[in-house]
């Protein structure tokens, strides 16, 4: 029997655990490109995440760290068009904190380095429209906005960091649109009369501004670089495969969905989009992913519409076919592509 492992890579809150939960539901329902013939031995871990989804909430961020031991979702699957090839796949759930640390400090446990070297497939998760993706403005490309908001925005700037973290899995407030401060909605023009008063209210005027976080797209590029360094060639000698999955695809507007993941990346993360177009020793494919077809933290009507439904019937993978974006209900597609012989 063939074995294979698919590494899930992505920062905190990028949707890895929720994807595994939804993947398991697809396997269980025996739908999609990959089929599981029998229940895996240990389902406790995926069950935790499924429980959240069935309560119509996203699974909270995996709080475990490396010292708590790892949890692998191991399952035997067979391609639905392939009668013979039973394959055991293991999908280690690596906490996003580990990736964050790897990007910040370049440190990675030997255990994971070995795991990567033994694998030739990975899925890189990028969550659309989350405040966790730092997209700081700068004095070259956003001078006019910064000057316009100079009086008011420096307090807000940098506060978009962990807003999403606590309420990530709980039924918290709806996530905001993008990380950059919402400009233009309320141009706060400081009048001359206001200025001294404002200064008085701010005794800590000389406090140095917070150091901006590493832009999300630089982190994505670094993760891709790590994958290029670590993943091994496939058994047939071809390049390792990396599926780049844009999660929360349902949060995009109609035009962005039609344009596809590459256009989305070009617009939001030009550095990363350029890097993806220069795959070098990786084989890269892009997917959009919506695990339940909508935002469980958003409108109540959507949550209500899922009441009592089998969650393996909702959600989709957005893929480009013949130049047109289609929403395929098979969420196993990125995994199937990454593992395909």
């Amino acid at each position, binding site marked *: 029997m063939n074995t294979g492992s698919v590494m899930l890579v992505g920062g905190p809150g990028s949707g890895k655990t929720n994807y595994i939960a939804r993947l398991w539901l697809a396997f269980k329902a025996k739908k999609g490109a990959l089929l599981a013939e029998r229940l895996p031995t240990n389902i406790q871990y995926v069950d935790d995440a499924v429980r959240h989804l069935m309560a119509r909430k996203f699974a909270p961020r995996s709080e475990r760290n490396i010292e708590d031991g790892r949890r692998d979702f191991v399952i035997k699957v067979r391609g639905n068009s392939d009668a013979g090839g039973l394959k055991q796949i293991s999908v280690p759930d690596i906490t996003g904190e580990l990736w964050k640390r790897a990007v910040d400090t370049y*440190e*990675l446990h030997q255990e994971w380095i070995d795991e990567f070297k033994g694998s030739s497939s990975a899925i890189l998760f990028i969550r659309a429209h989350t405040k966790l993706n730092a997209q700081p403005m700068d004095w070259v*490309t956003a001078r006019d906005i910064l000057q316009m908001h100079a009086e008011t925005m420096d307090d807000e700037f940098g506060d978009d960091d962990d807003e999403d973290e606590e309420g990530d899995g709980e039924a918290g407030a709806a996530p905001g649109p993008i990380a950059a401060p919402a400009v233009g909605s309320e141009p706060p023009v400081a009048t001359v009369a206001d200025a001294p008063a404002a200064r008085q209210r701010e005794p800590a005027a000389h406090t140095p501004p917070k150091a901006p976080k590493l832009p999300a797209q630089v982190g994505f590029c670094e993760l891709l670089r790590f994958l290029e*360094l670590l993943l091994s060639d496939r058994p047939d000698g071809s390049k390792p495969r990396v599926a780049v999955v844009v999660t929360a695809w349902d949060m995009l507007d109609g035009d962005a969905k039609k344009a596809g993941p590459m256009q989305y990346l070009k*617009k939001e993360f030009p*550095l990363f989009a*350029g890097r993806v177009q*220069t795959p070098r020793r990786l084989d890269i494919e892009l997917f959009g992913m919506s695990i339940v077809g909508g935002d469980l933290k958003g409108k109540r009507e959507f949550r209500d519409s899922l009441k009592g439904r089998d969650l393996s019937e909702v959600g989709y993978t957005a893929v480009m076919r013949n130049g047109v974006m289609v929403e395929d209900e098979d969420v196993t597609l990125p995994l199937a592509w990454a593992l395909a012989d």
Partner: protein
Amino acid sequence: MRGSCKDANCTFNLTKMCVRGNPPDECPHRPLLTDVELVDDDDERQQSDADGRESSSDVARLLDVGGAVLDAPTELPTLPPSRTLDLDKANAMMAARQTCMIGIVGLPGAGKTACLVSAYLLLAKGEFEGFSFSDSATLRAFEEIARGSRMWVKGNPPEQITAHTTLSDDREAGFLHLRLRRDCDGRLFDLLLPDLPGEWSKELIDFNNVARLEFLKSSSVIWFMVDGRQFANDESVAYARYRASLLIERLAELLGEHRPRILLVPTWRDVGDFPDAEVARLSETATGLGFEIEMAPIASFSWNEDVPPGDGVAKLVERSICPRKRARAFWPVTEADEDDRALLAFRGRQ
């Protein structure tokens, strides 16, 4: 002679400082050692082993007085960082694929780092005219120099956006790498750009300190950065011109026979245009030394409403990669002559 301190609250064993303030040789918490204990260690140890008890000096030995108290932390393996490339790595890259090495010289404050930051930020937002980002082996190095451009002080733009460049190794240049994709034809260009302290150029002028700038001989183009503010100011223009001409002379000497193209890059275009007369003077100096000078003014940042930030930076890069085409016929038709070689004579009859 006294042994190790027996007081559990005292740090003497580690720090050699008595928390009770006693003189170390008189402290009652440190037992007196006998001569036998001091001299005949081996015998003493055997004896204590035989007795099954440990003497005070054994305890001191076990305590490893003055030694490390904690085990060394286990260090995690690290992945290779994407910081600046050293000369070896830059050489390896140039050997592996066609790479354009751009030499950057200029006095402190001329705006060398600001120019690189500006180019990087434009690429990061997809606003770099004519090119898009494709890859970089030194992404973190770009992030480090770009950090200041994302901060601001209340109510005002920062006085200085880029920090003064210093190098951990002051003897060897650190290179930034960019791979750009040309939008019109998708062609990829690899660039190596050194981020050097202005002191290197200053010391080249003052002391002819050439050793660490030897790499300039491999460059296909040199950005000669000058502070546009100084040339726009009557007070400072004479000295700025004098120093710039000295730098050109030093460069000519350093480069030997090699004559790469020189792009004269006046920064701070937002403050004022570079005077034509100064261009003419610098060109004259350069031409006399065998250089060809082209102008490429930039405004890496801009506080002038009429000049967009990053103005000219994309054009500077484009001109570095793609030299201006000369108006010469690729294969000029010449009159054939009976005395010419046969092939040319044949061609002439067609």
